[in-house]
């Protein structure tokens, strides 16, 4: 397993947001985490990236323990995180936003190659490379946030609610992009409220309920599961 979470607990003051969660992400494909608002999906990704300290448990990436490391060190090891709400830098241009994603990389030529790759993947970003990020639409900002994460040449990509607030057409577009990224060799951890989309894209899925894994299994199986259908797929 490329990324393993072992029995982690995260507390916000007295309240446990994650109470003993374990997950495993293989070196290829898409793993999804679905669940309701407040189930702990975002917290799980934040814990992996070092934004939330653990009160119990361990996180291993590539056979090394990464919990307790500062976020920048976790990025350096190859974990890229597209946070909830995109969080692009509003007063940086599109190109500057992308280049901050490559902050830790030093090989100039390889950075330029990555930039060209991102522009090829997202032609809209190439058209707008000198625009302020704040002037872009929600879908474009999501592309920018994903592009920025790809600029770090990640070994795993964490995506937090990429479909949030987007039009159905744009959600389709994002789904295609996520599939492409995974097909081209970067494993993806996809957190989604849009369970239908997530279960279609992913090979393996975890269902989080109030801070614990309620169900897990191959995404296709969960898609047919009665509980999942009732609770997350609207029937």
């Amino acid at each position: 397993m490329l990324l393993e979470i072992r029995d982690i607990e995260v507390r916000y003051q007295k309240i446990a947001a994650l109470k003993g969660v374990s997950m495993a992400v293989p070196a290829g494909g898409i793993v999804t985490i679905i669940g309701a608002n407040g189930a702990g999906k975002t917290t799980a990704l934040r814990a992996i990236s070092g934004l939330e300290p653990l009160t119990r448990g361990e996180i291993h990436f590539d056979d090394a323990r990464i919990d307790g490391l500062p976020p920048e060190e976790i990025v350096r090891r190859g974990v890229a995180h597209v946070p909830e709400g995109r969080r692009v830098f509003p007063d940086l241009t599109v190109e500057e936003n992308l280049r901050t994603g490559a902050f830790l990389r030093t090989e100039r030529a390889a950075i330029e190659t990555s930039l060209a790759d991102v522009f090829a993947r997202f032609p809209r970003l190439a058209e707008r490379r000198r625009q302020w990020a704040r002037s872009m639409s929600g879908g474009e900002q999501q592309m920018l946030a994903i592009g920025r994460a790809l600029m770090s040449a990640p070994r795993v990509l964490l995506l937090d609610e990429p479909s949030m607030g987007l039009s159905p057409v744009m959600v389709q577009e994002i789904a295609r992009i996520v599939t492409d990224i995974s097909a081209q060799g970067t494993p993806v951890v996809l957190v989604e409220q849009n369970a239908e989309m997530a279960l279609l894209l992913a090979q393996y899925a975890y269902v989080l309920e109030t801070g614990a894994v309620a169900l897990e299994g191959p995404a296709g199986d969960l898609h047919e599961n009665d509980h999942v259908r009732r609770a997350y797929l609207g029937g």
Partner: protein
Amino acid sequence: MDLLWQTAINAMYAASYMALIAVGLVMIFGVMGVINFAHGELYMVGAYCVVFLYAQEKFPFLLSVAAGLIFVGIVGLLMERTMFRPLRKNPLGGLIASIGFLLILQTLAVLGFGRRMGHVPPPTQGKIEIFGAILTYQRLFVIVAAILLLAALWAFLKRSKFGWALRACAQDAEAASLQGISMNQTARIAMFIGAALAGVAGALTAPLVSPSPYIGHSIIVTAFIIIIVGGIGSLEGAVIAAVLYAFVHTFVTTFFDGVIANIVGLALMFAVLVVRPTGLFGARERA
């Protein structure tokens, strides 16, 4: 007409060093979220570097200014490490610590140089005439140096990787950390630059003001007005507000007097806040 033009030239001079101070203050606030109350004292320490090295020890003026820039920058690094970093989750604590540090710097200046105003003989005596207005070389030097320093800062922020990192961190520190940008490293850079700009402003103007351990006080009040008018967090705003404030203040001082000028300065801040509560170039509300 001559007096108007002469006053405008004088205002240019005031604007140049106030811009250096205000930009540094904004930079520290932008990256670390802390109001550095000791910023005026960093200016004072810069001035005393020139008092000591140039006036007392007879080192060349330019070398003394450069030493002031670096020394005050290092004082800034010290502040970051000992106060602002441990208090990062507590911006109010950082502010209070900086007030304490202000008093320490003042006391050290009194211990080292006495309470009285220092005197720095002007390194140059000449002056030029621009369309009838007189500008001493000393003041011209401050204006040129400020413009060059601000241009260098601009280039750093827009063209270098650490410049982007600094701006990214000021806009969203957590998202910046997810790009591998270390908060500690960014804070060090911002603090060094911000303090060094205040220090170099003090060093450059030392021959033109009479440095005393207490000059930081009026400087910080003016700097606060400027960054509030410009919009807290906006570097461009700080520069433009420094020019605006310097012109208003210098003109009112010349045609009325200094006390009225201070009142008008505060009225200017009040008027801007009524019309635009986030200042002229203040950040829009962020989601």
